[in-house]
Each structure stands twice: as structure tokens, then as C-alpha cells.
């Protein structure tokens, strides 16, 4: 089968729906909080009552422009809205307000890694603004379908890619990149389980070298990135096997069954809707001018790619830079941290060492991490100045600060008796005492038994109660021994 698969080229395009985290709906002032009691976030506009008219939420335009800029798209100046007409129980108006021939963003691309880890550009066809439907709930009441209209009218961006994916892994990487992007841009939670990021897939296969596309199948209802990947890989195999066994792929919509790991027919082409798109007469076209786009651009939050490049320039390696930018919150913490310390490498090590392992242990997000970046920076400074040892800072002090994040690290180090003695005057007494304790060992040292340095150091550390800075102490012991020679 592996060999046969090699003779075919899969052509895959993704349509992502991103639910925007605006405070109110796309065309009315209802709230949009996830998880509210059913049908509590509905006013007469989301209910589609007679005589109601949509009102454009300007935040939706701003968010679309943000994403468009981040994806290198061309932003359209004159944006018209359209109606997509179909009947469904969770669509109170009988149509969805969307954009048809004038999507707000056109073209553009997103950079991802392909299945071999190489850089690849995925080009976008368009991004357009639309509204969500309500939710039909089939599994609570055994006899009725229940309708929750809280989601009806919540703003969405639909991101349509060019058919440039070749396997499930690429689609997975693209989804992960897109989620990262919408979170950095602060326009969506990008949460597939909660439905704030949804993905439909179009797949066809063609023999390698053939120009004409194969017949396209649409796959829906995947609730995780992994399932998108699995659905694609399953569907590629299904289509190739079908063709190889003399069959023909038919145009249809399929659904992914996660339990079985396979796709099944949802509806045939003949049952496809005729959506009867036409310009939405209740909304004036929205004009997006250059100066508006520049303003959005100027206020754009930092993007993962920019931060990655910045950290590379600061001297961090690729691995560190990419881990630090994996999540926006971690990157923001790191940004904060390096505004307080110039030791970038140490800052990166702190985040990826003690901080991350603490977060992992507690299954906690960095937003909830109790120690401020400023205090971590102070710990770094204290280690660099030789005041405390690295292990004391990242061990006892770190734990103590988590217990009581209000403490001042310097005071804490004193109270915990962790300040290293690096003052030559104070140390010198211990050095003299140590050498005086073992006169015959001093003679042996002088005779060439240099390995005895450790013994004197141990004594110095003991006398100082463990607070001697080992580097400084070692230097003083050697100087003193040489003097006696």
C-alpha cells in the first residue's frame, strides 16, 4: 500500500472557522460568553424577530484586519455583506450574514513546517467575516432536539486555504500555527474542543504528474487537530484504494467518526444546498481605508515569528527561541523577564527549567504563575553577582517565593542564610584557620600533593557554614598556600 500511495498526490485544502472573542455579537449587542445558561444571551436581533436589523460590530472588522495583516493578506477597501439562505432550526433568520464576492482579506500566506520539518508556505485564498448559528442539541432530550441560540450571531472569520497540503501532518502543523496566531493576535481562544476553532477539509487525490484535479470530498466534524490529521490520512487511503480497485470517487460530504477513525457519508452532492447568495440589503458596505489598516498594524500585538527572530538575535538557539514563542503567554512572561535582566540565556533557562517544570507539575498556565518576572530577574542578578548559588536560587529560594510571592528575594536569601561569603576579609580568617588546623597537610601540599586543595576548601566551607563563595574561597586558599612556599 505504501508504494501505491506514492503514485498518488493528495490535494488538500482547509477551511477554518475561528470564533472571535469579541464582547458582543457580530450584528447585535448581545454578550458572547462561552458556557452561559442556554438562551440567555439572546435579544430580539439574535432571535431574528420581525422588524429587527443587523448592526455591524466594528471589532469584527478590526479583528479581521489584524489576522489579515498577520497572514500577509491584501485587505479589501469596500466590504459588502451577503446573505446565505438555508433553513435550519438553529438559524433563526433563515439566512446567515456572511461575505460572498468581497471577502475582507485576499491572498496571503502562513509559514509552517512540512512533515519533514522543512519550511513551507501555505497560501490563503481568502478570509471573510460571518456569523455563527445557534446550537442544536440532540443528546439531552430523547424525543426533542433542543436549541440554544446563545451562539447565534457570534462573529466568525472563515479562513480558506489554497489546496496546498499534501498530508495530515501538514494540516496539523497549519492548524497549530493558526491557533498560535489567533491567540497572539488576541482575537480568539482558538479552542477546538470548545468549538472556537473549527475545521473542514477538502481532499482529492490524483496520480502523480497529472494536472487535472481528482474529485473532491469534503470532511467535517473533527473535534481535535489529531482527528483532522487522522481524517485526512484515512481519506487519502480510502480514495486511493477506491481508485486502485477500479472505483470512482464521488463528490460528497463525509463526517469523521473519531471512535472508528474513519469517515462516513453525510450527504451526497445532489443534496447540496443552493444557498441563493445575494447582497445583504440591511447593511451598508463597510469601507476599510489605508489609514485604518496602518492604525491596526501599529497596535498589533507582537507576532510569534517576530519574537522568534528577536530571540535568535539576542543569542538564543533555535530550540529555545521556538519553545519560548510556542505560547503567547510564555512569550509575554519572557518579554517581561528580559525587560528586567540582560542575561537572556539565564532568563530562558529559568523559564524552561524551574518555571516550566513547576507549571507542568501543577498543570497550571503561566498566567497563574505566582512569582513576578521582576523577582525571577532579581534571582538571576543575585546568582550572577555570586551572592547566592544557582542551586540555592532555583531550589530553596524558588520554592520559598512560590509559597510567599510577596517576599523580597534579597531579604529572603539573608533570612534563609543563603548569602555566599565572597568578601575576601571575612573569608581570609576561615582560610587561615583551615590551614592552621592541618599544618602537616600544608607541608604535603607544598611537596606537590595538589589534590589536598579539596580538603582545605571543605574546611573553609565548613567554617563559613556553607556560605563561602567556592570560586573566591578556592582562589584565596591557593594564594595563601603559595605565599607560604
Amino acid at each position: 500500500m505504501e508504494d501505491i500511495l506514492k503514485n498518488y498526490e493528495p490535494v488538500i485544502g482547509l477551511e477554518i472557522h475561528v470564533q472571535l472573542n469579541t464582547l458582543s455579537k457580530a450584528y447585535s449587542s448581545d454578550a458572547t460568553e462561552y458556557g452561559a445558561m442556554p438562551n440567555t444571551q439572546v435579544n430580539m436581533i439574535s432571535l431574528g424577530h420581525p422588524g429587527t436589523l443587523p448592526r455591524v460590530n466594528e471589532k469584527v472588522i478590526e479583528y479581521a484586519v489584524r489576522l489579515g495583516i498577520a497572514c500577509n493578506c491584501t485587505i479589501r477597501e469596500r466590504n459588502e455583506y451577503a446573505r446565505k439562505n438555508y433553513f435550519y432550526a438553529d438559524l433563526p433568520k433563515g439566512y446567515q450574514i456572511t461575505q460572498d464576492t468581497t471577502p475582507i482579506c485576499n491572498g496571503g500566506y502562513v509559514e509552517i513546517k512540512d512533515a519533514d520539518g522543512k519550511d513551507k508556505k501555505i497560501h490563503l485564498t481568502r478570509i471573510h467575516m460571518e456569523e455563527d448559528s445557534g446550537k442544536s442539541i440532540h443528546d439531552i432530550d430523547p424525543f426533542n432536539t433542543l436549541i440554544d441560540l446563545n451562539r447565534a450571531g457570534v462573529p466568525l472569520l472563515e479562513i480558506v486555504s489554497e489546496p496546498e497540503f499534501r498530508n495530515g501532518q501538514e494540516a496539523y502543523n497549519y492548524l497549530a500555527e493558526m491557533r498560535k496566531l489567533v491567540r497572539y493576535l488576541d482575537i480568539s481562544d482558538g479552542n477546538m474542543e470548545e468549538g472556537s476553532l473549527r475545521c473542514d477539509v477538502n481532499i482529492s487525490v490524483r496520480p502523480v504528474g497529472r494536472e487535472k484535479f481528482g474529485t473532491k470530498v469534503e470532511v467535517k466534524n473533527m473535534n481535535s487537530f489529531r482527528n483532522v490529521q487522522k481524517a485526512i490520512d484515512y481519506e487519502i487511503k480510502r480514495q486511493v484504494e477506491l481508485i486502485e480497485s477500479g472505483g470512482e470517487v464521488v463528490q460528497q460530504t463525509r463526517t469523521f467518526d473519531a471512535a472508528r477513525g474513519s469517515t462516513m457519508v453525510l450527504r451526497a452532492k445532489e443534496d447540496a444546498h443552493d444557498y441563493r447568495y445575494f447582497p445583504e440589503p440591511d447593511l451598508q458596505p463597510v469601507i476599510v481605508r489605508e489609514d485604518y489598516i496602518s492604525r491596526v498594524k501599529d497596535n498589533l500585538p507582537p507576532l510569534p515569528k517576530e519574537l522568534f527572530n528577536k530571540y535568535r538575535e539576542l543569542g538564543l538557539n533555535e530550540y529555545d527561541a521556538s519553545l519560548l514563542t510556542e505560547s503567547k503567554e510564555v512569550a509575554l512572561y519572557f518579554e517581561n523577564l528580559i525587560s528586567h535582566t540582560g542575561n537572556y540565556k539565564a532568563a530562558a533557562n529559568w523559564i524552561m527549567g524551574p518555571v516550566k517544570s513547576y507549571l507542568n507539575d501543577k498543570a497550571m498556565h503561566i498566567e497563574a504563575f505566582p512569582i513576578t518576572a521582576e523577582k525571577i530577574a532579581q534571582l538571576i542578578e543575585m546568582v550572577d553577582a555570586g551572592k547566592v548559588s544557582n542551586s540555592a536560587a532555583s531550589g530553596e529560594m524558588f520554592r520559598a517565593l512560590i509559597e510567599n510571592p510577596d517576599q523580597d528575594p534579597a531579604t529572603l536569601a539573608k533570612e534563609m542564610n543563603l548569602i555566599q561569603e565572597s568578601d575576601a576579609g571575612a573569608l581570609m580568617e576561615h582560610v587561615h584557620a583551615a590551614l592552621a588546623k592541618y599544618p602537616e597537610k600544608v607541608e604535603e601540599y607544598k611537596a606537590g600533593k595538589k589534590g589536598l586543595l579539596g580538603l582545605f576548601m571543605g574546611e573553609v566551607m565548613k567554617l563559613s557554614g556553607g556560605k563561602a563563595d567556592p570560586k573566591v574561597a578556592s582562589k584565596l586558599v591557593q594564594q595563601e598556600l603559595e605565599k607560604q612556599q
Partner: protein
Amino acid sequence: MAFNTLTEVQEQLREGKLTCSALVEEHLKRIEENQHLNAFLEVFAHDARSRATVIDQKIKRGSSGKLAGMIIGIKDNICFKGHKVSASSRILEDFTSLYSSTVVDRLLNEDAIIIGRLNCDEFAMGSANEFSAFGPVKNPLDNTKVTGGSSGGSAAAVAAGLCHVALGSDTGGSIRQPASFCGVVGLKPTYGRVSRHGLIAFASSFDQIGPFATSVEDAALIYEVMAGADEYDSTASQREVEKTDFSATSDKPMRIAFLKDALTDPSLDAEIRERTQELISQLQEKGHTVEGVSFPWMDYMVPVYYILTTAEASSNLARYDGIHYGQRSEKATDLESTYKLSRTEGFGDEVKRRILLGTFVLSSGYYDAYYGKAQKARRVVKEETEKILADYDLILSPTSPHTAFELGKKQLDPTVMYLEDIFTVQANICGNPAVSLPLGKHSNGMPFGIHLMGRAWDEKTLLEFSAQLMNNN
């Protein structure tokens, strides 16, 4: 009393010769006496009485609004919080609105009294008011005749003195044609001048709310209270509403055009043609320039109108599906039968006809040939009309090719009915303001209107000239 202008009524109210309560009682009595007209679908008697008491007190304190003393009826497609609104359809028969339309709010803020909701064609689709699910309205001037439509109840109520002013909506002539048939003033403002928030949509890019009154002055007053920007309707214009001034009776010579083809149209009643020509001569004698212009796009207007309005209607009426509110068929067993049976039982024939037509013209494969082409034709008609109005202040024509016809006569052939709108649709296709003025009286005893269309957003010129024309005739 019913035919006094508001200025006269308010004078008497201020002098204490009259109270709002007395006015309300008088009108309730007249409504009662004229029940046979079938103009009102519901009378808000209790509401009207209690508001009258409150407003009478305000008048005594000197704190009453601009419309104190004005009794208003509203077409049954305009929402009024806590009141039923059905669009004269079975599908919304027991539906109560959760909110008030912007126009109702603005009228109430100026202390108008809303006395009831008025019969109309179902979802404002019709030209005779014979397509109401609750029976036709009879013409108060001759009960065997229609009132015209779709705002027939509104025209009849004003003509019979059942209210001072009534609100209607005009998508292709639904205010002006019944105004012509019933002998009252009817104004359709510029599209976007009056908020549509709370107007049950028929065709969103054509619909506009406007008043019926017995005088241009009252129509203008109501219009000015209702007009202007509204955050709930993004198609409502931000432009400032210029106040009309009827005291300045300037005889400034106007440039008026009439469409030659309209006056030579064979469907035009001879007496109406004569009266129109007589008016033209009269205006010319007064020093106005009145000239015939050719407009070769006349024949396209009614088709353009029917393609675009039915397309929008097919989408606007999709929400009446028996699921969320309104009538649900008792025979429904699942989602699909809920849609099919509720809509089959809930909508009348004319509404179904237009939904079918609109669905067809938007269907894939037909869109370009019908909807797309009609959109282009609409642009041409608009541009060509603007060209005429760049040269002329107003365009004059009859409102309708004939006077009110007999009840039940034309209903059988929808295509004949569709020609009712031939002189009025231009204003809706282009969005321009237009009035019908009761300036004609036919030998058959029925009135007819003269139609004036003005430049977009220039209701002021249109209304001031209309008042002058009314005073001179």
C-alpha cells in the same frame, strides 16, 4: 373635528376647549361606527385612553410634546412593544412584539397617541388590500370599492376620520396608491430617511415608512418627527433632516418634468390624463417650467421591481418557519414538516407566489439572468432618473392609471395587479421621495392623486411645493 390640522387641534387643546381624552373618545366612537370598513385589526382603546389622561396633564403643565393631541394609527407591520403585530398574516396572528420600532418610539416621545393597528395586504404585498388574511378593507368613499394597497387600512382610516394620521409603508407604491384611491395625502420619504427598525421587512432595499394625512402640513410634521439617523438601522442616513417651512409661500419658479410616455400610456384613464394636463397648464401659467421628457426605461421598471423585491422577500420571510415564534402547524411531526406545513398554512397565496418567484430568481443558474440583470437595470433607472432631476426639481405624473376599482375584480390575475405600480415604483427603485396629493375628482365619484417625485434627501422642496399646490387647488 377629524379633518382639522394638528395646529388647529393643538390651539383648542391649549385653550382648554378640547382634551385629548375627548379626542380619543370621539375617535373610538368613529372607529366603532366604521367597523364595516375593516380598517383596524385591533384598537388599543385602553392604552389610548390612559395616555390621553397623562398627556392632558402635560398640556396643563405646559410640558407636552410636539404631537400632543395627535391620534395615530399604525400599519400592522410596524412593531409596538407589548402589542400584537401580524403583518396581516396568519403566520404571525398571535405574535406580540418585544420592542417598539424607532418610529413608534419617536412618535410617542412627542406625545402622539397610537390608537390601533391597521389592516394591510399580507406582508405588505398587494395593491388592493385584498390580500390580508383578515379580509379586505373597504373604501370609505364607496364601500364596494377597494382602498388600494398595501397600506389600505391606513388610507381608509385617515379618509374616514378614524385617526388624524396613519403610518404606512411603501415598497412600490403602498402608501401613495391607496392615498390616491382614498383621497388623502401620502408621503414616501427618501430611502434611508426614516429608520426601518421595527418595520416587518418585505423588500429591505425598497421599504420605507411614511405618513398618511389630510394635509401636507401634518404629513410633514409626522415625517420630521420620525426621520433621521438611527443606531438600530445602518441603512438610515446620518444626514440632517431639513425643516419644512410652510409660512414662506414663495412663488419661486420651479422646473418640473413629466414623463411623456407615462401620460400617453394607453392604460391611463382619460379623465386622469386630462386633469394632469390641466394641472401642467396651470403650473405653466403660474410661471413654472413644466416640460415633457422621454424616459425609455419605463417598461423595465415593473419587472425590475418584481424581481428584486421578491428576491429580498424570499429571504426576509424565511424566518417565519414555525420553529421559533408565530404559528406552527399542529400537523407537524418533524423539522421538515414543521417548515412545510407551517408555511403552507400560515402564508396566503400572494405571499407564496412572491416567495416562489424570489427563490427562483436567486437560484443558481438563474441568478445572473434575473437578479443580476435586474440589479444592473436598477442602476440604469436610478442614474437616468438622477439625470432628469439634475435638470428639474420635480417629476410629475398621475399616482395611478385609474381610480379605485371594485372589490374582488382584479384579484384573479396577478399580472394585471402588478401593473398597478407603474407610476409609483420609480421612486422605490431609485430611492427618491414622492407624494400623492388628492388633487383629482373623477366623474365616477372617486378621487385620484397627483404624484410628485423629488430629489433624494430633498423632502423639503417636495413638501413645500406640495403644500402650495394643494392650497391653489
